[in-house]
């Protein structure tokens, strides 16, 4: 039969790319063809671009906002955790010195422990030339503990924060008085306990404000001021994670009898465990083991809460972009009604049609996600590397805004965005899947 209309012909052999496309599953082929066809429709193209840019912006905003919070968190954690004991064992009140020292020796033998120091803590004042400053007195033995950065490892002596030295114009070697709220009873009535020591040096007070500044002094002096009622063991490990493992081992250790206690007043049942003894020395009953996490729990909780709230708030951008994706797909589906009707007439199942449009939405969303990830991660790396966002160092504890992209955060952003986009695409695709073929074919 001769064709009714003869036109100039092109080579009839299909190109390899077209053959490849024909071998793909039908929903994939449909989605890829519809991506191409939307480029010919100016309004559909505009909506697709809006959806891609919206999703890209959302991902960028999420990545950058989480990166800046993570950056600040890491900086703050480093700043604060450097001045927090990795593990602190609170010994029961009234425990005698010999029992406390025995407990310290027991702790030192726990695997993973790199150091254990007996300490006495309590409130007091630093007094100098009529000025008094409330501080937390930390009596230590041996070398200055690691929770006093800048002075850690130095010999016994009096160490005060560098900020106090700067405020009061103190000079190392100059005597400084320490006053205790615990009075001494004398025939003349209760008298405050006062000890004067030469200032050995300072420790770094950091750029964040402590609740109460600490002063490190020899344990023997602290015991005379505070009476040795709040004894603790500061435990060190190789790093923060190792410290958590050490704390777990300490908690698993059996508690001993109270025969070694001077008062025996403290009740058993602290956090120290009750497992059967395995031949290791027990912690005194009523001992409480706290890790750096528990010591900073309010702060760490606040940081996590801040991050979660920021994530939720910025996610709204992705949600709005997903709505643009719904509009884009709805327009494409509307313009393809007769084709969808014909596909259904030829036996295409609703599931196949749904898959095609979900894939189409996935391709649009995927472009936005890829673009947003590149901009967000790249931007965060550049902003952090070259410190492009300065902040006043005198006001904040940093002089630039740090950015840190954590793989888990990035994965969360990608999963959330993809889930929102696919849910939106599914909503729109459902319209295509449920089209009545007769209505769709009607012109």
């Amino acid at each position, binding site marked *: *039969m*001769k*064709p*009714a*209309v003869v*036109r100039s*012909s*092109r*080579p*009839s*052999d*299909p*190109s390899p790319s*077209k*053959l490849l496309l*024909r*071998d793909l599953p*039908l929903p994939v*082929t449909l989605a890829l*063809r*519809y991506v*191409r*066809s939307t480029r010919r429709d100016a309004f559909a193209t505009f909506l697709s671009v809006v959806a891609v840019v919206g999703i890209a912006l959302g991902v960028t905003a999420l990545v950058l906002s989480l990166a800046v919070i993570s950056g600040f968190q890491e900086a703050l954690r480093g700043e604060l955790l450097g001045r927090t004991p990795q593990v602190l064992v609170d010994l029961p009140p009234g425990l005698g010195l010999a029992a406390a020292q025995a407990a310290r020796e027991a702790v030192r033998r726990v695997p993973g422990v790199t150091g254990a120091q007996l300490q006495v803590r309590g409130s007091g004042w630093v007094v100098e030339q009529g000025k008094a400053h409330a501080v937390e007195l930390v009596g230590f033995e041996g070398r200055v503990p690691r929770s006093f950065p800048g002075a850690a490892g130095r010999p016994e002596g009096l160490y005060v924060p560098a900020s106090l030295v700067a405020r009061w114009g103190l000079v190392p070697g100059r005597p400084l008085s320490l006053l205790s709220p615990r009075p001494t009873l004398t025939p003349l009535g209760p008298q405050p306990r006062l000890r004067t020591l030469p200032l050995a040096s300072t420790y770094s007070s950091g750029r964040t404000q402590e609740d109460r500044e600490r002063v490190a002094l020899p344990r023997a002096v602290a015991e005379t001021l505070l009476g040795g009622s709040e004894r603790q063991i500061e435990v060190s490990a190789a790093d923060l994670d190792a410290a958590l493992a050490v704390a777990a081992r300490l908690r698993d250790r059996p508690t001993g009898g109270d025969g070694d206690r001077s008062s025996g007043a403290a009740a058993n049942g602290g956090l120290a465990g009750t497992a059967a003894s395995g031949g290791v020395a027990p912690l005194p009953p009523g001992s409480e083991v706290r890790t750096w996490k528990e010591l900073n729990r309010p702060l760490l909780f606040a940081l996590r809460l801040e991050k979660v709230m920021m994530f939720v708030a910025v996610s709204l951008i992705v949600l709005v972009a997903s709505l643009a994706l719904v509009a884009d797909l709805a327009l494409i589906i509307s313009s393809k009604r*007769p*084709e969808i*009707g*014909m*596909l*259904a*007439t*030829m*036996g*295409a*199942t*609703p599931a*196949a049609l749904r898959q095609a449009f979900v894939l189409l939405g996935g391709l649009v969303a995927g472009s936005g996600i890829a673009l947003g990830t590149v901009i967000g991660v790249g931007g965060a790396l550049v902003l952090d590397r070259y410190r492009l966002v300065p902040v006043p160092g005198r006001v904040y504890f940093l002089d630039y805004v740090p950015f840190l992209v954590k793989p888990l955060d990035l994965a969360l952003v990608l999963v959330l965005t993809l889930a929102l986009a696919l849910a939106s695409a599914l909503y729109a695709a459902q319209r295509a899947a449920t089209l009545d*073929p*007769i209505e769709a*074919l009607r*012109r």
Partner: protein
Amino acid sequence: MSVTLLARGLTKTYQDGERRVPVLKGVDLTVEPGQLVAVVGPSGSGKSTLLHLLGALDRPDAGTVEIDGRPLAGLSGGQLASFRNRTIGFVFQFHQLLPDFTALENVMLPGRIAGLPPRAVLDRAQGLLAEVGLDERLDHFPGELSGGERQRVALCRALALSPPLLLADEPTGNLDPVSGDQVFALLLEMQARHHTTAVLVTHNPSIAERCGLVQRLEGGVLHREAPHDRAAGTLEG
């Protein structure tokens, strides 16, 4: 392979606001294997509705449709879709080709939907297009084809899986007389060559005359058209 198409007591009523509009009021139709039946009637008489019911695109309010002894009433939506894919070929007034797919790809679609091996589907589609003289147009998109060529591609698509039943709704209604005649001649040739049972809805008396049997749809029921009526030109609705 061809099938017997049997419709009994088909009724269909549409709701137009508060008003009920009965379109089919008990249509009976029997089409023997390999037979070509033309359904004629005035506009709005329900010809397309009848075709939709016969093609398992819609369900009747009452009555039954059986294709080769298999009633359609008990089939689920998914089963109907599969049944349409394998058993029925459709040709509409507007070609309804997918504009983003080439002529060859359009003809491959039923096979792709059926999940047949791509190579076999490709070979079959190329063979069909060659049969209708479009072997030089395989890679052309519908927008690059003439109206007659598009309708020929649509006919190939309808016959892609060698369906035993072909349903055509005004297949030449959108073409100029010359192209329309060519397409109809081709349809007759393909229907005879593939021994396909076919039902054709048309307004065109000259086309209806060339069919083996003519049924007039009027007042919601089918009447067999006598040959002298056709000669008198009373087919036009």
